[in-house]
């Protein structure tokens, strides 16, 4: 997973069927100290994150497990998902 900050939302009417119903947020990735790296990632959101929230983003099968648990979720169309909204970090 990586840490990042939600900076916006992406809207798409024309999209693959498996992507329908997913909220897609634009996340600016941070390094370990919380500084922006300039990298952007589009992540599915199930936690109702808002612009400005610090979040962690899971990739790969970890992202699919956020949207639908279980080993048989390989057909979920998601490769990045917000796994947690960060309240503090030490």
């Amino acid at each position, binding site marked *: 997973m990586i840490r990042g900050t939600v900076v916006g939302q992406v*809207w*798409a009417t024309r999209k693959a069927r498996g992507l329908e119903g997913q909220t897609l947020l634009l996340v600016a990735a941070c390094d370990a100290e919380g500084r922006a790296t*300039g990298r952007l990632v589009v992540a599915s959101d199930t936690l109702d994150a808002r612009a400005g929230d610090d979040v962690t983003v899971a990739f790969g099968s970890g992202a699919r497990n956020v949207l639908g648990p279980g080993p048989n979720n390989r057909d979920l169309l998601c490769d990045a998902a917000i796994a947690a909204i960060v309240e503090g970090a030490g």
Partner: protein
Amino acid sequence: MILGRVIGQVWAARRDARLQRAKLLVVRPHAIYEPAFATRHLVATDDVDAGVGDDVIVCLGAPARASAGGNDMPVDAAVMGVVDRIDLSPDAMRAAGAGPGIKRALTLPPDAGTK
């Protein structure tokens, strides 16, 4: 998923049998994208009939294969959506230390990256 702009299309007569019907687009990722190989573009199959100049959402890895037809597909990137609108929060970008660079990357002209 990553955000990028379609800058071209690839044609290939000789291709893997499972890719016979696939439309292959060349996508230039917005902002910084760091793949394992040194390039500034990627080739993705197209699920949504995107065209050159469109801003698109590209899915990488297993979901791209699932979307292309199954886990045995020789694919690792698929265009999954055509972007209508991006709401950027200036406050959040400032807080993230993202600066104006991201906004600049999102507003490049359609022919950017083709030269």
